[in-house]
């Protein structure tokens, strides 16, 4: 009874953001430990975890951008298109024009920034619905990708391939293969970039004025305005940051796959939205956490790996399981918020 009371106290004292974050992290841990116990196989090796990170570094970066936009009450569905456009432009620049690595990074950042500035301006200063603006952005990015180059191709630039194959060993982690040779676990450069971005944006959202104003604007525009927050500028910046992160994510994605194709990152925007939601961000705005989105991506991809590992190799199972998981998370969020509201009112 006493313990129950304590739990209740913690439950109601926690802010919405932290509560949803705790739920997310717990569910991820349960999933992963469950996979280790019941499925074994690849999951017992530490490399599995890092492989998940390697293949999802780009998704982590874009999800964080998505979370920031969602926290400030908007939405951006153009990120998948931007990722595809960035990888295609960089690929064309590196291969057909003999470009340098530095130049290609500038291209990636430039594309992201351009999308952010235009979309942010239309949303914040002209009051057009973010969904429609970013829908047009998605159409434009996808269309431009085909216009830049139609056929998919692999990049054969030497400096780039060297960078692509760079592996950073994780100290103290690794496993022995069948012959008893020790193979250290490794991560790619993209993961390092993703982790730096997670930490930096976590700090920005938690401790800076700008970060707090994202929450204020998303929670209640009117009261944010009363408090002296520049609502328009905050909205504008949220879109700029999101698209810029999509640009960086695009480069990381490009670094991982090493090719340009119009079909790249198909449906990535929906995956990013799904990860943000699983990570406890609410589309109504004002609630969310970057760390949560990070775990959202990990949960999503763990599920995918479990499905693939369980021998359910029919492609449709992935879609159905992710949808089921999304459904459960949404219902949990809905019920938790409802309970909390009821407790606060009584």
């Amino acid at each position, binding site marked *: 009874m006493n313990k129950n009371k304590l739990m209740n106290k913690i439950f109601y004292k926690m802010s919405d953001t932290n509560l949803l974050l705790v739920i997310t992290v717990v569910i991820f841990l349960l999933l992963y430990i469950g996979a280790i116990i019941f499925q074994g196989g690849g999951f017992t090796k530490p490399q599995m975890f890092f492989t998940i990170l390697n293949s999802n570094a780009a998704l982590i970066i874009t999800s964080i951008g998505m979370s920031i936009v969602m926290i400030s009450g908007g*939405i951006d569905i153009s990120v998948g298109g931007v990722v595809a456009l960035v990888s295609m432009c960089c690929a064309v620049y590196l291969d057909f024009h003999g470009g340098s690595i530095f130049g290609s990074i500038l291209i990636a950042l430039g594309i992201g920034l351009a999308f952010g500035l235009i979309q942010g301006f*239309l949303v914040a*200063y*002209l*009051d*057009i*619905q973010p*969904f*429609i*603006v970013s*829908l*047009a*952005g*998605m*159409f*434009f990015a*996808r*269309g*431009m990708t*085909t*216009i830049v180059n*139609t056929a998919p191709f692999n990049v054969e630039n030497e400096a780039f391939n060297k960078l692509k194959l760079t592996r950073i060993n994780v100290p103290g982690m690794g496993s022995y293969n069948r012959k008893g040779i020790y193979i250290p676990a490794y991560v790619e450069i993209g993961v390092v970039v993703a982790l730096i971005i997670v930490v930096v944006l976590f700090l920005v959202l938690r401790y800076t004025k700008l970060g707090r104003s994202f929450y204020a604007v998303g929670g209640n525009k009117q009261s944010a305005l009363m408090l002296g927050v520049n609502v328009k500028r905050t909205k504008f910046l949220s879109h700029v940051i999101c698209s810029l992160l999509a640009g960086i994510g695009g480069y990381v994605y490009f670094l991982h796959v090493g090719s340009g194709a*119009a079909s790249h990152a198909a449906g990535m925007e*929906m995956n990013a*939205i*799904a990860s943000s*939601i699983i990570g406890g961000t609410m*589309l*109504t705005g004002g609630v969310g956490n970057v760390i949560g989105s990070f775990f959202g991506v990990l949960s999503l991809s763990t599920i995918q790996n479990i499905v693939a590992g369980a021998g359910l190799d*029919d*492609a*449709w*199972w*992935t*879609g*159905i399981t*992710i*949808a*089921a998981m*999304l*459904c459960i998370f*949404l*219902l949990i*969020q*809905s019920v938790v918020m*409802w309970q909390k509201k009821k407790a606060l009112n009584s």
Partner: protein
Amino acid sequence: MNRQLLKKITGNQLFIPLLALILLALINLIADPSFFKVTLGTNNAGNPVLSGSPITILDYGSELAILAIGMTLVTAASGGQDISVGATIAIAGSVMLRVLCGTNTRPDTIQAPIIVAFLVACLVGMLCGAFNGALVSIFKIQPMIATLIMFTAGRSIAAWINNNELPIVPDPKFQYFGGFIPGIPIPTTVFIVILCVIVMSLVLKFTNLGLYTQAVGINEKSSRLNGINPTFIKFITFVILGLCVAVAALIKVSRIATINYSVIAKDIEMDAILAVALGGNSLSGGKFNMWASILGAYVIQFLTTTLYKFNVQSDALAAYKAVVVIILVVFSAPKVREYIGQFTKKLSSGKAVKGEAK
């Protein structure tokens, strides 16, 4: 007086989509007057059919127009959009094929009457709508997020229903719905759209659905205080959208007599939402105009057909579409209209001052 009339015209919700339509028509007329030529020919089966770009627009815009009807209601009631319509079309179409072909993917005759298959598909479409509607109305999840579930799972479920096989309907009668009925040169889809519109306008005229939908969209709390049940209204709009989806699925599947789970009705949800927005309906709910949305759907199809005429690649189509969308949306944004209004006022007042000086 004159200015008032002008304001009345530009203030009308049908103004933007009509203007877009007229502009597109003018561009086509200047570029290639033969765009509007309609010829009477015969198709492979020897039946008289009308062909030409205007017919193509009417024909291929019909799925979008039907979806726009349902999407307008959903948007008005819940202030959000259903992004799962494309995936639900795949489910409804898959169910239809399953009923028509049974377990055999290459049957010699259809296993059930077409009407039964269609009714089952309607039921499934409405069930999917009810699922989305329940999440939105009862569990209070934002529509876009709630329908994201169906969006992710839909195509997988569709493939699962038919065991990932692609049945082919042997009966040529099934293709009438997306093609031509022998002896009638006008595409059947046009009649289906007209039927849907008539039914919907009758429903809106003889029930309180339209009024209640707007009331819920404008202010949910006060509509509840006035004795309307917002939960039910939101739920029912999603079910109606499910029905529209089933009709659109019939047309889509009938066109090719088979299905491709990953491609069928791809990105149609975006076009449907766009149609609603182009019609000048607020995407955050409230007042709506069904006719404007339907017109918006045909504007999109007109644009697509025009771009194809200009030899734009189908993959690159989206980029041009985006530019047009942005231009339309920017000019119909209330803020921009305000600026333009102030600007013209300044101009005319400047003239008036000059006139006085004279």
